[in-house]
């Protein structure tokens, strides 16, 4: 069984950033990300300002930078796309190390990389300094519809359970000679994922049953 404690993005700590109210943090993050996205590509200095602010916040949070760096892997698909842009974009071209690259593409790629990296880092910092429970409570305080907050709560709660089921299915498959790398076995993988979906769906029904048995009425407003 998995023994990971807490949700995996959260780093325990007691910095001013950890102590800040969750709903303030959410507002700050959303505002900052909007600011980053609205910054035009092609100028350098605004990004330097954003980055300096963000690095200051990371230092303040005392979250290990190496930890954040490892989590940045999530950005890789965007990086690949950004690297692809200078080759495929149209417009005037320039020679860089013997390669013919589009100028517009280079600018767009630079902007995309800068915006993506800053945005992901901001979100990671929020996740690292905020416990999920506080985050949900913060969203509730920001008047996010109760149903959405509840759904997010369920997701957090059952991620581990469904993850555990997936791990057990994988072990059971491997024990019977399943090779995930062989394309011959990919249909099995698809069927296993299908089975996982059905199981999760059925669990959802059982959870609902258990809730109704304790007097839950979805239409009644809670709190």
């Amino acid at each position, binding site marked *: 069984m998995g023994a990971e404690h807490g949700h995996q993005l959260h780093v325990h700590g007691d910095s001013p950033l950890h102590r800040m109210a969750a709903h303030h943090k959410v507002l700050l993050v959303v505002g900052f990300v909007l600011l980053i996205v609205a910054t035009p590509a092609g100028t350098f200095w605004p990004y330097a300002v954003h980055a300096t602010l963000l690095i200051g916040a990371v230092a303040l949070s005392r979250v290990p930078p190496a930890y954040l760096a490892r989590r940045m892997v999530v950005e890789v698909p965007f990086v690949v796309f950004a690297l692809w842009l200078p080759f495929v974009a149209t417009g005037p071209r320039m020679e860089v190390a013997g390669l013919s690259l589009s100028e517009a593409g280079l600018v767009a790629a630079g902007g995309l990389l800068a915006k993506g990296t800053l945005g992901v880092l901001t979100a990671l910092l929020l996740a690292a300094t905020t416990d999920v429970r506080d985050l949900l409570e913060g969203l509730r305080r920001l008047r996010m519809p109760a149903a959405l907050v509840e759904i997010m709560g369920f997701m957090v709660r059952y991620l581990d359970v469904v993850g555990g089921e997936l791990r057990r299915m994988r072990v059971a498959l491997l024990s019977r000679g399943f090779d995930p790398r062989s394309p011959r076995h990919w249909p099995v993988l698809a069927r296993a994922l299908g089975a996982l979906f059905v199981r999760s769906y059925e669990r959802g029904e059982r959870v609902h049953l258990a809730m109704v*048995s304790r007097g839950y009425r979805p239409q009644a407003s809670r709190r």
Partner: protein
Amino acid sequence: MGVPVLEVTSLAYAYPDGNQALFGVDLHVHRGERVALLGPNGAGKSTLVLHLNGILGAAARSGTAAGTVSVSGMPVEPTNLAEIRRRVGIVFQDPDDQLFMPTVRDDVAFGPGNLGLTPAEVEARVHEALEAVGMSEYAGRPPHHLSFGQRRRVAVATVLAMRPEILVLDEPSSNLDPASRRELAEILTALDVTILMVTHDLPYAMQLCERSVVLSGGVIVADGPTRELLSNAPLMATHRLELPFGFDPTRV
């Protein structure tokens, strides 16, 4: 004996797909009793349990139902489902189905919260219920960090917090190690509440319940002292009930 806590009369039920699960069940449980509901797989035990709080049956307007269920004199009807669900506390088999809140405290508070109690009353109920299952010190922990046995105990607390008149347990001893199984037995015997326990664990039924009923093929086929039923070899064999190797009910 007064009004029974649980009174099931000629209860029959067929699922919407036409599959009939219950063929006229009669069952009375009186205050303070601990009754084991035994029966092979597919006997209709779960179907019966879901009728007790109106999840299935006439009150839920699902399938075809006949007969009545009442809890302390109150019939299970669509108009009083909220009160029925307070009176009948069902502990489901998989605690992961029952515990879905971020902390143990929130989970135990869920039922009382649905009853419309004040926050202070809810807090008192949570405290009382966790105390009863010996899990008070875990109130602030997320349920998925607890051991399986601890989660089962919290699941019992989530239902106790509603102060039910009858506690219905579905396979309470399944997947527990022997120590957790014994601890749960100690907790259940210490509770001052009427219990109906669905189980395949016959020694557990004998340890906890003086009386047992056997449900087989959608009807109650036997009802009597647990020791007598378990010692009745022909009855046991007919209804696919088997004692664990080496267990002799006459010598416990």
